[in-house]
Structure formats: structure tokens, C-alpha cells
């Protein structure tokens, strides 16, 4: 009844979802942290990244080229959005930011529908990424391994960027005390454009990588955005480390909950009740986790702001 191989496989899937979430959360948590800016359009960048990569892949037959083109395109779009639309909003309240970026989501969703139609796009896997690697009799898809690998490399690079470079020092300082950085005579706007650009590129990377696993559809950005927000709340706004830990927690708990919660409930509930309660609770699990974390640590697990 309980299959340890399945547990391992699902754990692996959770890891992969977690890394995808991290790619999105890493940039967004810095945007929230440094500029105290509420940006909902991050999910749109993810979606557009996925569509651009999918389209290039379909045209050229090369998935790698699709990813390689999508990144700079979305990076450029992100930087333009930041400079043109978001910058006037920094001085405004959160509500204005919510509404303006909500407006952007509506626009981008409709734009995608106009260009690519209401149906999603299927992205074929390149041949060299098909197939499985068998570890301990458990087949693990190559592609998922690649996603995990890329995610880990990006996480390491972000970590090095933030902790070991001068730019990273500014980013950290900006996240914990913006006014101080301003007072030191550093143009925080340039730092922010940089952060936003990195965030956009990472979102595009996540979107492009998600393409062959999840469907490339309108609204894909919003569904994952909410999970990303939960990650950021759990991890603590402005903290890369928090984003990583939060993303792993959410990814793994979400997948394991969906796979095993009804089995678990059957241990002490009647089958009927377990089959109803299992999926219901599983769908709420990450939010319950969020509420629990907030109860003990209202600033998240790794609060960046001190004092």
C-alpha cells in the first residue's frame, strides 16, 4: 500500500517544483524587499518567457535556442517595464502598485490570447533530454534532472552574487535599509533596475524550463505567482536564503501532500472521508504552512529587515 519508490519519485518532483519556484521567488523577493514594491506582473514575465521559448522552439526545432532567446528578450522587456511603468509607482502606495501591475497582467494575458490563441502550446522535448536515468530501480526523467541542475546552479550563482560581490552587498543593504543606501550617495534606482532585470531573466528561465513539463497556457503565471508569494512570505521578504528554503519547503510539501495525504488519512479515517478530505486538505496545505509560520514568525523565517 505504501511505496517507498513512489515516495522518492515524488520527493524528486517536489524538489523540481521547488527549484522552479525559487527561480521566480529569488528576483521577486528582492523587488519587494528593496523597493517595498508590490509587483504582481512577475507571473506575466514567467508566462511570456514560456511563450517566447516555446515559439522559438517550434520555429527552429531547438529547445536550447528557445531558452537562449527567451532570456534576453524578457530581460529587456523587464527593464523597459521597470523604467517606463514601475518607477513612477515606487513613491505611491501599495494599492496603486497592486492595481497597476494587475492591469499589466490583464494586458499581457489578453495579448498572449491575441497572438497565440486561447489554446496552450505543447513544447516537445529535445531528443537528448528524453529518456530516464535509473537510480535504485527508480526511473528519473532526464529533463527533470536538468531542471533541478539548472535551478541549483542558479541558486548557487545568486548566493555568490549576493554574498560575494559589491553589487550583492548593495542589494543586501538595499533590502535591509534602503534609506541608508540612499544616504551613502548610491543610486538605488540603478541597483533596482539591475535586480528587476535579473528577476525578469530568471522568471523567463523558469517559464522556458517549465514549458515541456507543464502546459504553456494563459494564466500559468498567476497560478504559480500565488505559490511564489507564499514562498516569499514564508522565507521573509528580501531574503534570497529565505526564498530558497521557502521554495524547497513549498515544492516538496505541496507535491507530497497531493500524493500521500489521502493515504495518510486512511490510516485513521474511514476510506470515504479520507478520499474527500485528502485532496481538500492537500490543496490547502501550503497555505496552512504559511499561516503556521506567520503565527510564530510574522516576518518570515529569514527576515531581512532588522530594526
Amino acid at each position, binding site marked *: 500500500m505504501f511505496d517507498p519508490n513512489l515516495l522518492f519519485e515524488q520527493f524528486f518532483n517536489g524538489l523540481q517544483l521547488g527549484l522552479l519556484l525559487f527561480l521566480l521567488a529569488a528576483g521577486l523577493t528582492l523587488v519587494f524587499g528593496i523597493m517595498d514594491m508590490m509587483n504582481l506582473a512577475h507571473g506575466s514575465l514567467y508566462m511570456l518567457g514560456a511563450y517566447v521559448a516555446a515559439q522559438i522552439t517550434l520555429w527552429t526545432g531547438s529547445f536550447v535556442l528557445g531558452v537562449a532567446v527567451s532570456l534576453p528578450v524578457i530581460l529587456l522587456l523587464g527593464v523597459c517595464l521597470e523604467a517606463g511603468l514601475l518607477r513612477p509607482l515606487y513613491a505611491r502606495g501599495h494599492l496603486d502598485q497592486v*492595481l497597476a501591475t494587475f492591469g499589466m497582467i*490583464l*494586458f499581457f494575458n*489578453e495579448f498572449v490570447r491575441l497572438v497565440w490563441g486561447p489554446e496552450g502550446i505543447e513544447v516537445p522535448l529535445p531528443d537528448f533530454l528524453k529518456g530516464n536515468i535509473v537510480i535504485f530501480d527508480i526511473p528519473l526523467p532526464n529533463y527533470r534532472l536538468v531542471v533541478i541542475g539548472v535551478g541549483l546552479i542558479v541558486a548557487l550563482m545568486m548566493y555568490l552574487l549576493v554574498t560575494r560581490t559589491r553589487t550583492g552587498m548593495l542589494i543586501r543593504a538595499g533590502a535591509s535599509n534602503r534609506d541608508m543606501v540612499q544616504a551613502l550617495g548610491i543610486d538605488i534606482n540603478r541597483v533596482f533596475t539591475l535586480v528587476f532585470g535579473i528577476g525578469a531573466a530568471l522568471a523567463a528561465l523558469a517559464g522556458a524550463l517549465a514549458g515541456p513539463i507543464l502546459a504553456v497556457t494563459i494564466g500559468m503565471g498567476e497560478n504559480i505567482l500565488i505559490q511564489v508569494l507564499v514562498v516569499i*512570505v514564508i522565507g521573509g521578504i528580501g531574503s534570497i536564503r529565505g526564498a530558497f528554503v521557502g521554495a524547497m519547503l513549498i515544492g516538496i510539501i505541496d507535491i507530497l501532500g497531493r500524493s500521500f495525504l489521502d493515504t495518510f488519512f486512511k490510516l485513521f479515517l474511514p476510506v470515504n472521508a479520507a478520499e474527500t478530505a485528502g*485532496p*481538500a486538505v492537500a490543496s490547502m496545505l501550503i497555505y496552512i504552512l504559511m499561516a503556521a509560520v506567520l503565527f510564530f514568525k510574522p516576518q518570515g523565517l529569514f527576515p531581512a529587515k532588522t530594526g
Partner: protein
Amino acid sequence: MGNRAQILIVGTIFLGLALVPLFAELTQTPFYLDLARRMMILAIGALSLNLIMGYGGLISFGHAAYIGIGAYTVGICAEHELVSGFIQWPLAILVSGVFAIIFGLISLRTRGVYFIMITLALAQMMYFLGVSLDRYGGDDGLPLIERSNFGALVDISNNVTLYFIVLGALVLSLFFCKRLINSRFGMVLQGTRSNETRMKTIGFPTLRYQLTAFVIAGMMAGFAGALLANHTDFINPDMMHWTRSGDLIIMVLLGGMGSLAGPVVGALAFILLEELLSGVTEYWQLIFGPFLILVVLFARGGLLGFFADKEQRDG
């Protein structure tokens, strides 16, 4: 605040709304009856959001959840053959209130961006809960077998009767909000929006007032949800989708934040815009999205604010 202009505008709107059933009957366009009824229900939802957002300064991005909870309460009752409106409606208000207490206690521990994200996440949780409730239609939703039954008192299975019930509910809600805002409690709420630290240092434990407002707003939205279930004869998770919460925020903002009747004007403007734009093009959000951004950038007081400013300039 341009009080005269506000009364004039709102008076005209209510007069117009009262005449809609006649118009729909004469022109044989029941569509308009339906549209105006939906608009009024959403206006009640927006009024309740305005209590906490406009007057309390709490940007809740999950307010549609309470509308959904109210609607689901009615739908689930009906599914179990409990059709009396005397039970359904108070229960809908009560259940939304209980959820608002729980969610309020969680989200009010935080402020700013956190508060927005947490209210959004909790509402989305309710959405996914609705999707996973296979017993009550899951993703597809659940038809309401029978509208709420008020016995001999009133029969809301008649569309026009339901229309006037909704209209009455809207007027009552507006009146309730007016009393609440100008009461001692309302003053505390507005003071807290303006300067929470100051409120604490003159002796107000602000959290309990914010939580109370949050719960009142949740209950009002739950009531709107009970009406909505009857209006659509249907419940589905989409009522709780986060974009519905976004719509409510837009309505409040369009009408003018923190003005009493603003949400009513905003709901009207929102529905009309939606109808108008979707008549022009299938891709109407291509226009509506940028329109929102323009409103944020250039018309901050909303429509009522615009008129109020004008009156101040003229007078």
C-alpha cells in the same frame, strides 16, 4: 468632499436602478435586469471592501473569498435540502464571519506588502478548496436546485422580486456603512488608517478594532455572496478566484477610495466598462489593462473624487 455632487450622483443612480425592471419589461431585454442585479450585488461586496480598505487602510486582496463563502453556504445548504432563506442567509453571514475572524487574526499580524500577499494567498486557498470539493461540484461548480425560500413573506424565485430585494439590500448596506463610518468605531478605524502609532499612544489597542472591521466587512461580503448564489442560481470556485478580488478593488478605486458611495459608482462603472469594451472587441482587456494603469497614474480620487474636485474648483 463634494457632498452635494455625491448625493446627486447616487440619487440619480438609484432612481435609474429602480426603473431598470420597467425598462427591461417594456423593451423585452431581461439581460439588463440581470446585468443591473449583478452590478448591485458586486456593489455590496465593494462597499464592504471599502470599509476596510478605504476607511481602514487595509488592502485586502482576498475579499472575493467571503463572497464565495457566503455563496457556498447557500449552495451547500440547498444541496442538503435546507432551503429556508431565514436559515441560509444568516448562516452565510455567520460562516463568512467565522472565516474572517480566522483569516483576520492571521493576516492582521502583518502590514503592508505582507498583508496584501497573505490575504491573497488565503483567498486562493479557499478557491482551491472549492475546486477540490468534488461533492459540491469541484471545478465545475454546483447548480442551485432552488432559490432561498422565504415562505409566505416573499418569493424570490421571481426575477423582478429578487431584483428589488437586492436593490433594498444595497440601500440598507449603504445606510449601514454611513452609520458605521460616522460612529465612534468608524472614527477609530479612520484614525488608525491615518496614523496607527498615534492611535496606540492615545490609548487604542488598534488590532481589535481592525479585526472587528475586517469581520464586519467579511460578513457583509458573505451576505453579498448569498445574494449572488441566488442571482446566478449557481455556485462555483471562480467566484473566489483572485481576479474577482482584484475586480472588487478596482470597483472601490474607480468610484473613489474612502468615499461612502464610491463603490456603488465604481461597480456601475466597472460593469458598464466591461460591457462596453467587450462589445468593441473580443480582446477587451487589452484596453482595460492599460486603462487601469492610466487611472492609477492620473485619476487617483476615482470618479466621485473627480466630481468632488471639480465642485471644489468651481465653487
